[in-house]
């Protein structure tokens, strides 16, 4: 069904390489090709250092890719600069992990909410109060909050304001970077429900970045699993975690503590540490931590292959 649609945003063979202080190259993102569709959530899961935050910075035009294309509405925006880039950015908005750090403590909620609109000259001062009330209503907060300061609000309320601010420009793409990770579980649930509801109303394409595979799976239409700068698996909805999967996805999955797990069984975990991206292994990035490592894994880097419809895995086991 998604196949016929044209993606709003698409990355083609995107690479991002930084240079470490000692001159060695740090490969943060390698050959990332992902498509983002209207009204759909693409979840990106992975642990610290897997390159998700760099990818977010590249996708949101905060950082140019080293090479590769980034197509927004079919136009390559990877090399845009200055005013053109600024204009493009309004289509991609973000919600961050910590709402406290992403608000100025000296701005009232109404000013926070209308700032993006002011940046693009889309609002008159006289319209601000009404717009703020409308945005607060959208995220199910009382209208009186417009006159408040963020410090007097709870974490969940602040995150709602952050969502309202991000949606003020009616962006086609909303990036949630660990947007629910700092919240209590019941608050997390209500924020996720709000995002899903708003997506249905506005057909926003959501990029949901999170380290919790179980949560990602429950909110995403498709999920990408990242490891050491590579996308190692890409699966449609409920396919993730069922049937075959990448050995790293298997490790992530077995490390999830859920309430329906077998409490008598010893928890499995990878004992080794994730290698530094400065010293990534040849061949498969996961090979030195993988139980199923074969000879070919050191010699050749596995490419993403479609193992069944809508389910891609980069692993020699499924070649």
């Amino acid at each position: 069904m998604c196949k016929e649609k044209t993606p709003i945003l698409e990355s083609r063979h995107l690479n991002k390489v930084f240079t470490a202080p000692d001159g060695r190259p740090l490969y943060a993102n390698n050959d990332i090709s992902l498509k983002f569709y209207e009204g759909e959530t693409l979840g990106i899961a992975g642990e610290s250092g897997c390159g998700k935050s760099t990818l977010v910075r590249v996708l949101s035009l905060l950082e140019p890719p080293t090479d590769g294309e980034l197509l927004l509405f079919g136009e390559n925006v990877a090399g845009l600069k200055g005013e053109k880039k600024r204009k493009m950015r309004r289509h991609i908005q973000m919600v961050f992990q910590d709402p406290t750090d992403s608000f100025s403590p000296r701005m009232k909620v109404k000013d926070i909410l209308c700032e993006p609109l002011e940046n693009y000259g889309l609002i008159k001062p006289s319209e601000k109060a009404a717009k703020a009330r409308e945005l607060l209503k959208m995220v199910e907060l009382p209208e009186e909050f417009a006159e408040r300061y963020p410090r007097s609000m709870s974490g969940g309320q602040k995150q709602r304001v952050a969502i309202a601010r991000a949606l003020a420009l009616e962006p086609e793409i909303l990036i949630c970077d660990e947007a629910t990770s700092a919240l209590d579980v019941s608050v997390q649930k209500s924020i996720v429900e709000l995002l899903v509801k708003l997506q249905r109303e506005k057909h926003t394409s959501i990029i949901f970045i999170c380290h919790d595979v179980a949560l990602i799976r429950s909110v995403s239409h498709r999920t990408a699993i990242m490891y050491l700068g590579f996308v190692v698996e890409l699966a449609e909805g409920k396919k993730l975690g069922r049937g075959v999967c990448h050995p790293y996805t298997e490790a992530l999955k077995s490390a999830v503590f859920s309430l329906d797990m077998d409490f008598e069984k010893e928890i499995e975990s990878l004992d080794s540490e994730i290698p530094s991206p400065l010293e990534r292994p040849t061949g498969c990035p996961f090979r030195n931590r993988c139980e199923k490592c074969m000879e070919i894994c050191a010699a050749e880097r596995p490419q993403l292959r479609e193992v069944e419809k809508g389910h891609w895995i980069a692993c020699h086991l499924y070649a």
Partner: protein
Amino acid sequence: MLDIQNITVAYHGQPFLQDFSLHMKRGEIISLVGESGSGKTTAIRSILGLLPQEGELVSGDILFEGKSLPEYSEKEMQKLRGSRISMIFQDSGAMLNPIRKIGSQYIEYIQKHEKLSHKAAEEKAVAMLEAMRLSEPERIMKSYGFQLSGGMRQRVGIAMAMTFEPELLLADEPTAALDVTTQAQIVRQMMELRKNHGTSIILVTHNLGVAAYMSDRIVVMQNGSIVEEGDRKTILEQPGCAYTRKLLAAVPNMYGEGYV
């Protein structure tokens, strides 16, 4: 072993943790679960007398092996802390001095509690790090805290806390800042502590999955009071209280229904 009797803790004179009781047997693992501000951290901090300045234990008693902890002098308390009762935190690396190497801090800590030569203390520290499955313990001893990953720092923290095989380990959100696979490592190592040394553990966490996996008993807290407690099976399968049910329902499930 540990008997907390109806303690009430006040901040700035306002009672916050109210009428909290906990009875713990040797080798037991008990979780305190609840959301931010439910009083779970206050509860375990009051055991070691580690309340912030404005906090005060206003009533109740805490008995450890039959002795009242609030009556301990500061000197007696210092002797107890880190030897018979240890604590680990969300980021144990944060308690390390950032401008001193881990080794020198670890050795100082060992020598404070035990009369050992520098060399013997160093050997003991290295052996503990090895037992925590940290590779290259000698290199870790020569490192500064910021040079290690969060998971490694946490394992250093647990190694330090376990040096004197404490009877009771207080763990305050020990895995909250960690990645999922690292969290699984730390959980497994805490379970091994009980298996190998019979350590009792009080775990404070907002992660119900971890609490359910680790604990014999679960205490659910809200707004400074216990709202429900029971063995794991009862809490998970027949929660009596609406708040417990709400918490359980909010945990994302690997195979459950999704939102989309």
